[in-house]
């Protein structure tokens, strides 16, 4: 065999070994971790949601993340029947990917299954904890759902509940069946998941015919896959890799970073100290340095598009001298300002978290307060974050990042600010009353009521808000797709167009 034959043979083998070029209407999506399950009732986990939500499994309603409105999906309309009962009128002519017809029995079963204590579904625990739902089919296309206690936002909650056929067993499935525009046709564990477009989908046919999901943990590798032609969309790349304006997008990821203040423990129980903490942080100095430039200064626990968010609530002014004066004034009044205050950060919580925490410690210490920084792993951090707080009687500031992409502050404010809230560092009767009032409101009054809650939390300097964060995505130039706040938890293939 001569040299030429050897080279030709080698080239032929290499060509055979290389992956086949994707069809024009196929896309490849690189996720940052492998999917351990494809169970629809776990779709609130971001990567499971990016594969399952509205692609395979649909919901009764759908949140429009652009304006916070609620759109029909499998339910065409809904009415409040009073006393916690809502009637949903279901879309007709819908079939699951296994060929069975969608009806009210499927909705009833999906509710039972998602809330079953035997399954420990994340959607059940996250959105429906502490309530009982009773689903009563009226006919094949109508169902009444009653919640106890009554939920004024039940239709919004239904935007989280993935619908499965009534035959689905009460155990985690490895073959998800849904009404969505795609079905899972392959799951090669450890390698990829492939979704293929359905011909019998009830809605408009999407452009993307096939989507392949790959799993790559390393940030640099994921980012390299788009220019290498191996991936079309990488929903999450690191900030330092986002260097190409043509392919890289910053998008609000619905996360808010903040310091939870233990306001019930001295010296943090003194409002002057909490005000001083807020005034000591030069938030603007972080932007474009340790925190992405596209992030915005936070004034609320929720993102600005959430119901009742008040854009006029001011960011506390950076004024170190005034912060020092407030601390000294408190000291003069006998407040134990020299007590060690624990500043707890969570390793890996967001990019540059350690550096951000070190800078915060420096800034907060300049007020004259005694701040001790401790960075801990997530399992340890949770003990500081949820009651009973691991810090015990020691005053603590716990750095956290809170995600609320559902559009309603009810998913945030009770847990963060009510006296009984699992992660609440404050107990204020008036604030409790405002939260209870807002939770029970419907219609336009609900937004106004939440606005009052935000104002009160702001007046109390209940926490030190930092930033509404952004994530970074890389999208191939051959696609017409712009990541949005929804990309943090879902990636609807039907929204992707081929240029």
């Amino acid at each position, binding site marked *: 065999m001569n040299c030429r034959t050897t080279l030709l043979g080698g080239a032929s*083998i*290499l060509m*055979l*070994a*290389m*992956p086949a070029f994707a069809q024009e209407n196929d896309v490849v999506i690189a996720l940052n971790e*492998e999917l*351990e*399950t494809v*169970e629809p009732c776990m779709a*609130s986990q971001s990567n499971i949601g990016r594969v399952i939500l509205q692609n395979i499994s649909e919901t009764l309603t759908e949140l429009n993340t652009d304006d916070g409105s609620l759109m029909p999906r499998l339910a065409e309309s809904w009415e409040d029947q009073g006393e916690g009962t809502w009637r949903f009128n279901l879309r007709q002519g819908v079939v699951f990917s296994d060929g069975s017809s969608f009806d009210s029995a499927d909705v009833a079963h999906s509710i039972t299954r998602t809330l079953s*204590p*035997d399954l*420990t579904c*994340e959607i*059940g*625990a*996250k959105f429906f*904890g*502490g309530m009982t739902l009773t689903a009563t089919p009226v006919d094949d296309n109508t169902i009444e759902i009653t919640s106890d206690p009554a939920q004024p936002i039940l239709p919004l909650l239904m935007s989280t509940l993935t619908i499965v056929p009534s035959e689905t067993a009460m*155990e*985690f499935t*490895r073959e998800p069946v849904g009404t969505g525009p795609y079905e899972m046709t392959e799951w090669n*564990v*450890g*390698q*990829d998941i492939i979704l293929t477009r359905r011909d019998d989908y009830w809605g408009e046919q999407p452009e993307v015919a096939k989507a392949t999901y*790959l*799993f*790559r*943990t*390393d940030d*640099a*590798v994921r980012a*390299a*896959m788009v*220019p*290498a032609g*191996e991936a079309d969309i990488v929903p999450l790349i690191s900030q330092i890799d986002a260097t190409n304006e043509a392919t890289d997008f910053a998008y609000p990821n619905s996360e808010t970073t903040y310091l939870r203040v233990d306001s019930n423990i001295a010296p943090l129980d003194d409002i002057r100290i909490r005000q001083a903490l807020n005034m000591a942080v030069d938030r603007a100095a972080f932007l474009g340095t340790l925190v992405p430039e596209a992030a915005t200064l936070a004034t609320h626990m929720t993102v600005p598009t959430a119901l009742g968010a008040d854009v006029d609530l001011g960011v506390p002014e950076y004024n170190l001298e005034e912060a020092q004066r407030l601390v000294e004034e408190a000291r003069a009044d006998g407040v134990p300002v020299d007590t060690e205050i624990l500043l707890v950060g969570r390793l890996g919580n967001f990019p540059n978290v350690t550096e951000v925490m070190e800078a915060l410690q420096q800034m907060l210490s300049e007020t004259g307060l005694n701040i001790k920084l401790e960075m801990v792993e*997530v*399992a*340890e951090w*949770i*003990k500081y*974050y*949820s009651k009973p707080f691991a810090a015990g009687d020691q005053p603590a500031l716990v750095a956290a990042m809170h995600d609320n992409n559902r559009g309603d502050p009810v998913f945030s404010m009770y*847990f963060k600010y009510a006296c009984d809230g*699992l*992660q609440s560092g404050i107990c204020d009767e008036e604030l409790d009353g405002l939260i209870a009032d807002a939770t029970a409101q419907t219609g336009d009054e609900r937004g106004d009521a939440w606005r009052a809650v935000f104002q009160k939390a702001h007046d109390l300097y209940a926490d030190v808000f930092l930033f509404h964060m952004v994530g970074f995505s890389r999208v191939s130039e051959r696609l017409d797709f712009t990541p949005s706040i929804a990309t943090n938890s879902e990636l609807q293939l039907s929204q992707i167009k081929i240029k």
Partner: protein
Amino acid sequence: MKKFLFKRAISSAISLTLLIVAVFFLSRLTGDPTDLYLPIDASQEARDNFRAVHGLDRPLIVQFGNYVWDILHLDFGDSIRRARPALEVVLEAFKWTLQLALITMTLVSVAAITLGSLAAFNVGGFFDRVATFFSLIGAAAPDFWVAIVAIVFFSLTLGWVPTSGTGTAAHWVLPIAVLFIRPFGLILQVVRGSMITALSSAYVKTARAKGVTPKKQIFVHALRNAMLPVITVIGDQAAALLNGAVVIETIFGFPGVGKLMIDSILQRDFSVILAAIMVTAIAIFIMNILIDLAYAVLDPRIRY
């Protein structure tokens, strides 16, 4: 031989038992997985139910007793994270690691033994100096750095091979090449040293005096005697790969057992941690027996 195998099986079973006891209790000491698996605002009822479903509500010693009883029945429990049998999850991952380790170590062994022997034949010569220089660099270069540089150069710049993944033969090129470098450097050095000693021994000198060709001096006369320390190093390096090349598996998206172990520890997925340790320990036990048998083949004075 049968007696030897029996003795090794007993001693390995004792080691494995101690390992399981240690890992079981140490992993439980890392904390309750409930907080990691349930949403942070999950109700107490949901938490209690989760613990009951996964047997975490029972006293630790009862959990251990149940676990031992189950593994005696070849039931390694279910992965909390994946809601699947833990052994199934581990064997799927181990399949990848085993293939990666086998291919890499075969290539490394052939290359390092051949080049190390040739380097030893002309100590201080040009080939020896080049081989020593590159083997030392190879043994010292950090895996993750080499991997990223290789991806940038061979995948992004030249476009010769994919960045990562497992779909085709081309996907294996970079991970194997990167994994190759360190053991190749180490083994080449050991082969070279061992061969220098063997080539200076009386029986090789005699063979040389009788006019035996250099090729025969190295590969027929000296190599067999030089191989014993080399096999030990090959065994160590292979064991390290079987335990999982965590960095390489992570960077190149290889769903191997090393990455699975790290993920399972972080996720407090106890059944998977224990099953992974059992599977890799048994594989290493089998490999050690094979190495012992190789000793006997290479040196007839060794008998079991």
